[in-house]
């Protein structure tokens, strides 16, 4: 058993037309024993950036608290919100600081970047546990159900999905993938981020 599989949990993020979506399951367990069905592993970094942290439960909190610290300092000093790509590099360097004693998390980042014309450009990224960045154009997955999520996403994703369609796509990808994984599930939460608002929905799933 690997330490990354102790608590369980998975996260997926997808790109749509002028929107992004990020979703995760809500299970926290101790190997086979389920402990909590509302464990939050996706956190808001700014109004337009969300970060998902699947992996070891204690590091989920530790990393989130560390990112919150660094992003708050950035915001207060720069007097502006951090951009998604900049935040992704912040995640990468934070993880690499612990190259030889890493946090057991594989972060997933989803956000909307500002374009010079005032519009938005969807952005997603993921890193491994030591900070190697992956800037994907379609979707990124991480967690105990990652192999199942890859399969579902590859099959269901198509470019330029509208927010409502993106929500359906990401939800189906996540729900069906976690049903095949013993360590993920117990409910799901989906965030769809658009220019004007963020819609968060909690999905009812199989509680087994």
């Amino acid at each position, binding site marked *: 058993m690997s330490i990354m599989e102790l608590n369980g949990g998975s996260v997926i993020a997808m790109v749509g037309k002028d929107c992004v979506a990020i979703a995760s399951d809500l299970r926290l367990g101790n190997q086979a024993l389920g402990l909590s069905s509302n464990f939050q592993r996706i956190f808001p970094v700014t109004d337009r950036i969300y970060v998902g942290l699947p992996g070891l439960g*204690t590091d989920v*909190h530790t990393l989130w608290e560390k990112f919150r610290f660094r992003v708050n300092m950035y915001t207060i000093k720069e007097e502006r919100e951090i951009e998604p790509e900049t935040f992704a590099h912040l995640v990468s360097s934070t993880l690499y600081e612990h190259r030889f004693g890493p946090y057991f998390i594989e972060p997933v980042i989803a956000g909307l970047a500002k374009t010079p014309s005032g519009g938005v450009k969807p952005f997603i990224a993921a890193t491994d546990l030591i900070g190697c960045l992956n800037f994907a154009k379609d979707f990124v997955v991480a967690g105990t159900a990652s192999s199942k999520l890859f399969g579902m996403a590859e099959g269901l994703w198509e470019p330029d999905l509208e927010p409502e369609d993106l929500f359906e796509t990401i939800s189906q990808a996540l729900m069906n993938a976690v049903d095949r994984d013993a360590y993920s599930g117990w409910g799901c939460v989906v965030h769809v981020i658009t220019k004007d608002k963020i819609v968060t929905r909690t999905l009812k799933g199989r509680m087994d």
Partner: protein
Amino acid sequence: METSFAITGKGYVLVAADTTAARSIVKMKTDEDKIKILSPHLLMAYSGEPGDTIQFSEYVERNIRLYQIRNTLTLGPSAAASWIRRSLADSIRSRRPYAVNLLVGGYDTSSHTPELYWIDYLGTLTKIPFGAHGYGSYFALSLLDRYHDPEASLEEGIATLKRCLDEVAKRLVVSPGKYLVKVVDKDGVREIEI
């Protein structure tokens, strides 16, 4: 061997821990108190490596008290749980980590709600309506999934807790004989007989 449970109810948190202190096959003591009172409205049940348990729980108890003396503000359950979690998260990557698992139950006097936190030796923190540590959790959690009512009165909560204790007594090979039960509500902390 060491078992602890906790459940939330209407305006209270019930915390129960076994009272056995044993080494290998010998029961040294059967009236050990494993529930520390951290502040007038905060309880913490501990279990884990002998020695580490007392050292860490007393460290927590004294530091919570120091914060209160220094700053004339009491730490609410959420802030206290965060501080405790941070201490354990720092400990796990140190030279010799504390191997202690905790159930932190408290009554938040500003929002008037009972709160319960499950914390393990790695620094994993989750806020739960009911929880348990030890082998007893394998028996109790499913019972609590079925019978727990977050709006239950204290009597009903005690009855639910009794179900768990009886099940563990019946099915766990080396089950603890006695349990100590404490409750925290708006009036503070007190021990109760069950």
